[in-house]
């Protein structure tokens, strides 16, 4: 327990210090001027943290964050003026309404791609401003909602009346602290990992069983709720609420804060929010040169830390670490492979039975720019079968896997899994059904560590219910996961890099991580697209044992691979493709002996 709390203090102690410092501002400065700057800064903190949830953590640029803030203000003002509703009702209405609005905007905008989403939110922001300006009956247009009553906030045991500036400051500090805590909490839960996975590689996330759009919508809706609540709080001490609340200038501020703060970095975003709101006020001493100096300072920040302030933090950390360790440069290189030590390791999957899927492909066709990549291909793979799919480059092997796994839609034909038509199903849905693939062009979550890559893959493969039910549980590893992960990591020679980010690994190591992720939760059908390309020959032997073990346990496997030695040794059946058509199909010995195969594939 002590270890956990001391670790928490090390990671988040700075937040507590920051909170105490912020709480002391009104104590040391009685001037209303400074306190108003503080209030302004805290509102920007709320918005910037929720903006970062969407832009930084799931990687979707949104122009709508200030709209949800303005929406919260209007909801509060209108409910107070027209219906005389109390504070807590306003909070509930603003949160629920904000999330609903986020879904209404997000669902159509996310349908296409992330650019469409950005444009969609921009359009939404414009429309919101127009409505606030022109819907006279409700919003009073440019005349603003006036006469908002001064709020009293019942807390059960006491009432707060934030009528004076310092009280308002603490009031807004409370909500800022809550937003920050919520953001930290999300980040430390499994949801945070899933967000990061979707941002790193949505295609891989989908093939791990995640529905990227649902996760992005979740982030967008939660961020909308944060901003709307901030709006309700801010409305409590304003007597008028005007269409200017929707100003796009705020979006620009948020963009700059996000940019100079650094992607998905809480400390970066907080620092940038404070710099951006406090610095212009401090510079008032420079009079008319104020904005010029401010602009120059921003430029200096951007030039010295192109990846944001977060980057500066990391540099300082590295420097301090370097000094602690006496300037010793750390380096991690692959150990020469100790082939002898792995002789007695039980291959994975040996202890369990896998219910292998039955795959039937009929009349599959797919063309790119008029060139037929797959041409009327029919193929049946029985449960537990291990089929090697070989053929010259460009013969349609990867495209076949793409069509089976829902990455591409076939032009014609049908794919069945256990008798159920799965043609055109999303790769997310197929992964949930246990149909898993690896990619030729090696996909990994680059900002996640090797272990996290495996954990995320395992999480996504659960049923939808289990996936969503466990999003708020901590990121700690379960025992069964740890055993499986340890086994894979050790036997694939990844032990020395298990805590490194996958983006720092070499090509061959990424291949291994990708393979490990594909079997971390036993699939029913496994499609391997050149898993051995770029892998050291010594490891190939281990790889083969993994495949053989999974095959032995009953897994259905299609193996696309050019390493014929491996294919012939492992597979009981070979299918040869040429120009998208099946050239041969049978046991490896017969197939390799066929003259047409020798000519097309081996050039003999």
């Amino acid at each position: 327990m002590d270890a956990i709390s001391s670790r928490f203090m090390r990671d988040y102690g700075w937040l507590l210090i920051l909170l105490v410092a912020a709480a002391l501002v009104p104590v040391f400065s009685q001037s209303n001027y400074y306190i108003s700057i503080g209030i302004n800064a805290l509102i920007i903190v709320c918005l910037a943290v929720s903006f970062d949830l969407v832009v930084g953590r799931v990687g979707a640029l949104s122009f709508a964050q200030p709209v949800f803030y303005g929406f919260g203000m209007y909801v509060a003002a209108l409910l107070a003026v027209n219906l005389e509703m109390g504070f807590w009702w306003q909070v509930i209405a603003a949160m629920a309404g904000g999330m609903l609005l986020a879904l209404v905007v997000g669902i159509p905008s996310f349908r296409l791609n992330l650019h469409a989403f950005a444009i969609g939110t921009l359009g939404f922001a414009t429309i919101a401003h127009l409505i606030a300006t022109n819907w006279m009956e409700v919003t009073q247009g440019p005349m603003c909602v006036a006469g908002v009553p001064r709020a009293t906030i019942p807390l059960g045991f006491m009432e707060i009346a934030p009528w004076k500036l310092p009280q308002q400051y603490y009031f807004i500090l409370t909500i800022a602290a809550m937003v920050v805590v919520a953001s930290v909490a999300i980040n430390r839960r499994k949801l945070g990992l899933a967000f990061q996975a979707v941002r790193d590689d949505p295609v891989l996330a989908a093939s791990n069983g995640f529905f990227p759009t649902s996760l992005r919508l979740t982030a967008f809706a939660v961020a909308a709720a944060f901003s709307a609540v901030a709006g309700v709080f801010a409305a409590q001490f304003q007597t008028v609420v005007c269409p200017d609340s929707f100003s796009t200038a705020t979006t620009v501020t948020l963009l700059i804060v996000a940019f100079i703060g650094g992607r998905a970095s809480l400390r970066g975003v907080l620092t940038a929010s404070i710099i951006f709101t406090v610095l212009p006020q401090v510079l008032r001493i420079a009079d008319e040169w104020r904005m010029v100096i401010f602009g120059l300072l921003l430029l200096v920040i951007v030039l010295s830390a192109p990846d944001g302030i977060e980057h500066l933090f990391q540099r300082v950390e590295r420097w301090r670490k370097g000094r602690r360790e006496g300037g010793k440069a750390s380096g991690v290189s692959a150990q020469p492979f100790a082939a002898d030590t792995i002789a007695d390791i039980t291959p994975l999957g040996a202890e369990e039975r896998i219910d292998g899927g039955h795959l039937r492909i009929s009349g599959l066709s797919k063309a790119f720019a008029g060139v037929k990549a797959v041409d009327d291909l029919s193929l049946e793979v029985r449960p537990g079968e291990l089929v090697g799919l070989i053929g010259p480059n460009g013969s349609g092997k990867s495209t076949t896997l793409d069509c089976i796994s829902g990455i591409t839609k076939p032009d014609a034909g049908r794919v069945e899994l256990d008798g159920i038509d799965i043609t055109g199903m999303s790769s997310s849905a197929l992964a949930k059904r246990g149909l898993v693939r690896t990619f030729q062009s090696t996909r990994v979550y680059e900002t996640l560590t090797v272990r996290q890559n495996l954990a995320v893959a395992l999480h996504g493969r659960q049923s939808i219910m289990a996936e969503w039910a466990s999003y708020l549980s901590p990121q700690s590893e379960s025992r069964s996961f740890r055993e499986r992960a340890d086994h894979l990591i050790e036997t694939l020679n990844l032990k020395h890099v298990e805590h490194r980010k996958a983006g720092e690994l070499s090509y061959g190591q990424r291949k291994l991580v990708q393979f490990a992720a594909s079997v971390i939760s036993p699939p029913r059908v496994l499609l391997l697209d050149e898993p051995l390309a770029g892998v050291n020959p010594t490891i190939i032997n281990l790889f083969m044992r993994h495949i053989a073990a999974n095959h032995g346990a009953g897994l259905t496997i299609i193996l696309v691979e050019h390493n014929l030695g491996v294919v012939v040794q492992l597979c009981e059946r070979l299918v040869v493709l040429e120009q998208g058509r099946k050239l041969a199909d049978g046991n490896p010995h017969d197939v390799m002996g066929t003259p047409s195969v020798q000519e097309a594939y081996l050039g003999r």
Partner: protein
Amino acid sequence: MAVEKEPLLELRDVHAGYGELSILKGVSFGVGGGTVTSVIGANGAGKSTLLKTIFGMLKVREGDVSFEGRSIAALGTVKRLKAGIAIVPQGRCNFPQMTIRENLEMGAYTRSDDGIEADLQHMVDQFPILREKLHLLAGDMSGGQQQMLEMAMALMVRPRVLLLDEPSLGLSPMMIDEVFTSIRSLAEVNGMAIIMVEQNAVQALKISDLGVVIELGRVSATGTGPEMLNDPDIRKAYLGLPVI
């Protein structure tokens, strides 16, 4: 084998890395014109890092890289390319939204002479698969075909030193034979020095004059291709072959 003379490219005690990580910790070897060198080692040993350092994508932190007797450690990638060092990076590295022809023209981007078209024709003679698809987008080709294209793109600058990061990656056996044969002839006919990183080490060593083993960021062994293929330690640790 070429007569020992001043090597075309020489590395002396080269150190390099990313950020706080140091990957190469003192790599030294030299290669002459008309030779093929294979760099082998475990996944993550620093082989790709070595090629990137030679091409100038990473800074030489200590030591020196010299080309034709002059240090190039301070030169940027464009200058090294113009001097005659070209690289084919690992994985897909072309312009997927451009046609094959446009990609080949991009390969010659740093050139301004009028021999480009002739070289382009020469390339499609050498890689016939590209001729059929000159008007197609590179991104629509199969992985193996893109690999061929990338090699042809690098050759468009008429390099003296060609760095290949896993040229056989994703190629069918027939293509691998073809690629290795053309690598050999490129070295012999054009007098190029070719340094390649290969996991298909057995086949690579067969056509190599020199084998270099990288282990923990240092050169742990060098030797001729046949020497390497017969070394029991190397067979066991890097080639996955039984010890004879």
